[in-house]
């Protein structure tokens, strides 16, 4: 920047010339000078000393201006003037010069000056542009260096979802190299159903400006090059550059990022806690103790009565009293159980209006964690009339998680592996959420006890999933049941309520 005053030093920069090449350039300039001069001399020999031949040097001076700075233009101009005037007789001494000749010389000198000034100005602007470009290049390099060290994958797409930039971390996450995906649609990185819905999402954003994804943290499935899916945490920002809209996505792998795995575990632990699994255990022993008392009493009364009846003349009134007491104790046991059910069913469920679609999609992505079997196609059919629901979010996520996991597990040996989560608004005003699979359907052995705890056909499983689902759904004032799909798979359905009229129906 300090060299602005010495344009020659910028020559190699501007034209990419080395020192050696600059020497050649100067050599050709001088050669041109002599060639032009000689031609001019020959012409004046032929046609007499016409002063207008002076303008023959203008192209040369322009060339000097382009290659060099104002000083050289002035020097070359002076040289041309001297050369031309000395070589064209009879120009010397000047008193022989005519008025037109003087005018020609003055115009020539002015022309040389304007070329020098104009050229210098042009060069200044050009240099500024070059410097700016250099800086931009620098900044980009720095930015790239930063991007390549960030652990999150960074993907930039344009408004048509065409990938513009794909960071090193993204390469690691998705198994594609940047060259492979740049210029392709972002949807190659998405499994169905997102793949086919993505266009609509973007269109929706452009049409309404409503930000469903932008600026929020979302859990979505990603699709690797090898076809496997993995859960990711996605944050999207908008970039406006040169009037073009770009989207920048930060992608965090939830299966690999240790911190996130922990967060996930915490979340699941919380889910399990909320689902009252641990409470069942704690209450189990309290319950056993409480029930023991009436049961023991009943046993004593009955056994005692049986003993009394063995006597030749049994004391019937005593036996009747004992049986009455036994009956009372049986009722007491029933009371204890009823209390317990009220306690469990009372539901501290904090019902709030929740965005059902987002809840379902987040849970769908979450359900992928730890499931290796990925031939399963998860699709959503969410009715726009079921946007908002009254729910305790974490609990309903637990229900969905259980149902989706069960569906995944049921299709382990199936040819067709389609999992559809859909929502519908019923005429009664209730929202029905259903989870349908293409598995073998329910084992007839257990259908009657399906929603009871500890009923399972899986060796490694507790069999409490569906009973927890029922507890939660009933605490929400809903019901849960199952149907058999025409092709034989199982469909689990449960109902939830809409928020009261006028509340938050258009929650984002």
């Amino acid at each position: 920047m300090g060299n602005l005053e010495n344009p020659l030093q910028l020559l190699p920069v501007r034209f990419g010339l080395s020192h050696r090449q600059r020497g050649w350039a100067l050599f050709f300039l001088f050669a041109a000078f002599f060639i032009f001069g000689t031609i001019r001399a020959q012409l004046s020999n032929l046609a007499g000393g016409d002063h207008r031949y002076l303008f023959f040097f203008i192209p040369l001076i322009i060339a000097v201006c382009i290659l060099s700075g104002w000083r050289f233009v002035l020097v070359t101009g002076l040289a041309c003037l001297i050369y031309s005037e000395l070589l064209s007789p009879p120009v010397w001494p000047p008193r022989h010069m005519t008025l037109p000749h003087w005018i020609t010389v003055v115009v020539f000198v002015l022309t040389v000056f304007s070329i020098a000034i104009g050229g210098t100005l042009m060069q200044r602007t050009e240099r500024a542009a070059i410097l700016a470009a250099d800086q931009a290049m620098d900044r980009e390099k720095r930015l790239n260096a930063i991007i390549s060290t960030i652990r999150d994958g960074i993907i930039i797409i344009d408004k048509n979802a065409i990938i513009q930039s794909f960071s090193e971390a993204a390469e690691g996450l998705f198994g594609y190299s940047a060259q492979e995906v740049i210029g392709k649609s972002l949807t190659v990185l998405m499994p169905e159903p997102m793949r086919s819905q993505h266009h609509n999402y973007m269109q929706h954003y452009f049409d309404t400006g409503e930000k469903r994804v932008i600026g929020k943290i979302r859990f979505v499935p990603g699709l690797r090059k090898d076809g496997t899916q993995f859960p990711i945490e996605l944050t999207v920002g908008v970039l406006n550059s040169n009037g073009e809209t770009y989207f920048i996505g930060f992608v965090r792998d939830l299966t690999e990022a240790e911190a996130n795995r922990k967060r996930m575990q915490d979340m699941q632990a919380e889910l399990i806690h909320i689902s009252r699994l641990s409470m069942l255990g704690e209450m189990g022993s309290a319950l056993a103790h409480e029930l023991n008392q009436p049961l023991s009493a009943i046993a004593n009364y009955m056994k005692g009565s049986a003993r009394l009846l063995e006597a030749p003349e049994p004391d019937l009134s005593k036996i009747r009293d004992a049986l009455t007491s036994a009956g009372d104790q049986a009722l007491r046991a029933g009371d204890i159980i009823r209390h317990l059910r009220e306690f469990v069913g009372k539901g501290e469920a904090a019902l709030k209006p929740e965005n059902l679609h987002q809840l379902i999609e987040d849970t769908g992505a979450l359900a992928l964690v730890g499931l290796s079997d990925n031939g399963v196609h998860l699709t959503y059919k969410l009715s726009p009339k079921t946007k908002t629901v009254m729910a305790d979010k974490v609990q309903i996520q637990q229900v969905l998680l259980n149902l989706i996991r069960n569906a995944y597990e049921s299709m382990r040996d199936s040819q067709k592996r389609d999992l559809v989560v859909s929502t519908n608004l019923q005429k009664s005003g209730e929202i029905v959420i259903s989870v349908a699979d293409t598995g073998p359907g329910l084992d007839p052995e257990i259908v009657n006890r399906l929603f009871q705890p500890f009923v399972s056909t899986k060796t490694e499983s507790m069999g409490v999933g569906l009973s927890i689902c029922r507890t939660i759904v009933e605490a929400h004032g809903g019901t849960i049941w199952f149907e058999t799909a025409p092709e034989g798979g199982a469909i689990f359905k449960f109902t939830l309520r809409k928020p009261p009229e006028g509340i938050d129906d258009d929650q984002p």
Partner: protein
Amino acid sequence: MMTSPEQTIHIIDDDKAMRDSLSFLLHSAGKASRSYTSAKAFLDSGIDDLDGCIITDVRMPDMNGLELLAELKARGTRAPIIIMTGHGDIPLAVEALKAGAADFLEKPFDDQIILQAIQKAMTSAPDSESDTLKDGFVAELATLSPREKDVLLGVVNGKPNKVIARELGISPRTVEVYRAHVMSKTGAHSLSDLVRMSIAVGL
């Protein structure tokens, strides 16, 4: 070896239904009983030289069954003391046996079991656990596998199955199986038998 009919059985339980029904059961078997609503009520009833047998619940407010047991032993009471426990109180019961209880019963119990327990408690002096039985038990102990012995030790020390399982690195169900093996090998009829004999031989 006969139980005189006048010998009273003292029932101590905070649960009315439990007291009444047990009293009825004993009555149906021709035994006289008296009920007390708490350990304190029993101690306050002013019986210095008790005859018969004492049956007490473990879980009671104020003074629990174990505290009552200690108090009675301190007072030099000769009457045998049977402890009743609810579910999950087995470690407590083991402690009770070590502290000198004649027997322990898990609620709910069969009439035969409680009557036999009373019978046995009242006919045998606390320290004269039949020697032949003891010798037999010692002989049987030798036939136990190391794992079975570990489980037995755990049980006798009043550890719940889960704890034993964790300490031995096996599943609670396996502990259950080992426990059953130990019982059948040693000829113990009940857990109570097993613990009592183990205590008797100083395990």
